[in-house]
């Protein structure tokens, strides 16, 4: 292994590879910070350019986009409530309230430090456990995925602030939305009023509408009241010690992010939600109400986990050739173009590829952190723009981002409709968290329940005949029951 690492260092420290790394980081940064453009779109855009590159440069560039996009997605989420990628929606829960409170600089610095630390810890986990974890992830079949989705949905008991009834309404609303589209098992069409809806309501445009566009309406309502950003915050020196008070969340979220990332199809958004739920549960009861209202711990939990999930998704990709996410699928495409087949033979036939990826992530992390921190003062200045102007700007970004996500004006319509829905939901005090939870997990829950039913010949007991599924379902019961028990004790 050591020999592989030294070889990989030599390979990565070539000028052309470092240039590819920088290009990847910059493209990823831009793509991630633009709501609507995801890392998979950015990577797909650059794939034709990799035809002429050597294998190492090509892979390093694609991996750099993947990682940089994931961490940059938190920036618009924190600044204007517009998540750059689905996972960053969770960062907006607390990041945006911090911005409203005038702490944009603090929130951004924290999110960058958290991203870097989460990515670093999970990278180490990846190097040590990639092979073993990827094999373990194979144990996830339909019953296990269903149980995982149920555990995820049970987090609503923790995620909701205030009324449980309203959280349930949000959850049901989200679940209703995911039923639109083609039935995952029989292929029949459900509520498909236009062919554009065949694959369901597009997730990203809906998210942009729910979070960002609805916020624009609220901004307009608030009028021209200046934001309270103090210039002092802008100059606040970022340092790793700022993360120290959150060390327990950082560690916990790194492990959660990595583990969820390893499970193919689970991905960064679920990692963030689960990590956020557990951070809130682990906090002191007196602090719990501050989550969703600008608790920095919430930003840390989300950012650490979604970046840790990136390395996690690389484990099944490198060790088994199984893509853990849409971006990982594009990465596999990039590898096959180079004549390389990610999978069990990659470590045997081309060990330089996985090790170069490890090393490039190690080298890329400080570069990304530096770019991120240098950008903070500039980003914070955005909050000094008068609300009227910023509302216009964000509205433009929403529409542009929705269009760019698939080059289609239908997505813009979805964003506008969800912006209006989001506005009214806020008016009646329904938090977007349960809706996101349902949107992320609904499809996984339904399709895998029905697959499990086919395998088990329509016997529900099949779900509890598998150990991992039992553990996850029991976890869900505990998560739901514990606040109730707490209330009973009082």
């Amino acid at each position, binding site marked *: 292994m050591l020999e592989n690492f030294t070889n990989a260092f030599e390979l990565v420290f070539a000028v052309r590879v470092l240039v590819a790394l920088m290009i990847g980081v910059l493209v990823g940064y831009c793509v991630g910070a633009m709501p609507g453009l995801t890392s998979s779109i950015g*990577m*797909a855009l650059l794939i034709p350019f990799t035809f002429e590159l050597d294998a190492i440069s090509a892979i390093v560039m694609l991996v750099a986009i993947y990682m940089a996009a994931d961490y940059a997605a938190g920036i618009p989420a924190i600044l204007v409530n517009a998540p750059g990628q689905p996972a960053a929606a969770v960062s907006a829960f607390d990041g945006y309230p911090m911005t409203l409170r005038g702490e944009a600089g603090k929130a951004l610095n924290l999110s960058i430090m958290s991203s870097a630390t989460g990515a670093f810890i999970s990278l180490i986990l990846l190097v040590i456990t990639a092979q073993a974890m990827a094999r373990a992830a*194979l144990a996830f079949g339909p019953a296990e995925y269903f149980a995982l989705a149920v555990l995820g949905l049970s987090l609503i008991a923790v995620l909701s602030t205030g009324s449980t009834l309203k959280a349930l309404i949000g959850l049901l609303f989200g679940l209703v939305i995911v039923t639109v589209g083609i039935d995952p098992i029989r*292929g029949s069409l459900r509520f498909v009023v236009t*062919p554009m809806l065949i694959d369901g309501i597009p997730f990203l445009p809906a998210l942009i509408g729910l979070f960002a566009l609805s916020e624009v309406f609220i901004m307009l309502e608030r009028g021209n009241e200046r934001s309270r950003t103090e210039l002092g915050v802008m100059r606040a020196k970022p340092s790793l010690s700022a993360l120290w008070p959150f060390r327990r969340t950082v560690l916990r979220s790194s492990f959660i992010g990595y583990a969820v990332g390893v499970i193919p199809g689970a991905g960064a958004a679920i990692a963030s939600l689960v990590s956020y739920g557990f951070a809130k549960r682990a906090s002191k009861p007196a602090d719990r109400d501050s989550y969703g209202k600008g608790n920095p711990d919430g930003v840390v939990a989300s950012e650490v986990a979604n970046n840790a999930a990136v390395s996690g998704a690389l484990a099944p990709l490198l060790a088994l050739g199984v893509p853990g996410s*849409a971006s990982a*699928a594009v*990465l596999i495409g990039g590898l*096959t173009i180079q004549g390389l087949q990610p999978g069990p033979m990659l470590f045997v036939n081309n060990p330089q590829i996985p090790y170069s990826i490890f090393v490039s992530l190690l080298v890329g992390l400080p570069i990304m952190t530096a770019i991120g921190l240098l950008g903070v003062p500039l980003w914070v200045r955005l909050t000094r723009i008068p609300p009227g102007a910023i509302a216009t700007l964000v509205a433009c970004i929403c529409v542009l981002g929705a269009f760019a996500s*698939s080059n289609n004006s239908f997505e813009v319509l979805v964003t506008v409709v969800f912006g209006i829905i989001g506005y009214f939901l806020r008016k009646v005090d329904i938090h977007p968290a349960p809706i996101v939870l349902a949107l992320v997990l609904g499809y996984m829950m339904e399709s895998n329940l029905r697959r499990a039913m086919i395998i088990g010949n329509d016997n529900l007991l099949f779900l509890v005949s598998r150990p991992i599924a039992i553990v996850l379902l029991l976890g869900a019961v505990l998560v739901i029951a514990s606040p109730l028990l707490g209330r009973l004790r009082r």
Partner: protein
Amino acid sequence: MNCKKLVGAVLGSTLLISASATAQDWPNGDLRFILHVSPGGATDVLARRLADGMQQITGTNVVVENQPGGSGARQLALMSLIEPDGQTIGSVTASHLGMLQQSEEFDLSSIEWSCGMVLDPYLLAVRADSDIQSLEDMVAKAKANPGGLTIGGFGEASGGHVAWAMFEEASGIVGDMNWVPYDSVGDAVVSALGGHSDVAIAYVGLVKQYVESGDMRVIGIQSDTRSESLPDTPTYAEAGFDVDTTWQQFRGVIAPAGTSMEHQQALCDVVEQTMQSDELMQYVRDSELTYGFMGPEPFKAFVEAQNEAAIYWGERLESIQ
């Protein structure tokens, strides 16, 4: 009203004239290549390779656009709105046929089937430690314990599902194994690797590495000849099962309905030239695909035959459930 018609007719005829006159000058500006898959999969990569090669030959940009959704229904919905001036093309695979069958809006004539590129035979794979040793063994076990075995594949009424229906029929185990539809063929292979499906129906390129690493075995391939990469795997016929081997996954290029034959021919010439370049031939070999270029007429005939089979077997599948 009459005036409008006249203008339309004049405009139409000028368009016709200009279309035939400029066929040699094709392409006339950037080409738009609409894919029905999301970025990253095998179909996407092949299409992007093709776009790159076509760009070098024609000297114009080929802009690739991903419009996934409903096995190509979303792509078709978009392409039907586009003027058929030869500047827009799309990707196509066998899964379009299942979609056309279910669709009330589109049928075979909703697009021009311009050219075929590659073929890919179906095969049946099991985990290395599975107690299913051969096709015969699988059939015997399925008959002995109906509903006890599962077969994982892509979707419902998909190319792979039809291929399975053909095998079921030929081996007399119709409905004895549970068909579990996954979101992609890759997911189905993973489910077999994890032991969640007893058998997976897939392609050579998707299982070869797992066979090499000792994680999987391939028990039969729906082809006339054995695969060079899997020399130990018998064909269905060798194992004693008579299954139609012309039913294979195909990938090709389509154009909006009404695109002129001249444009399609010019397009296919470029596609054929690109496919025969060293880079693409190498890619086709590496991906374990079978080169199978077909021009507009042979491809259309091929697709019509495939479609008949898809309809026949699609109805059979419907009646089984």
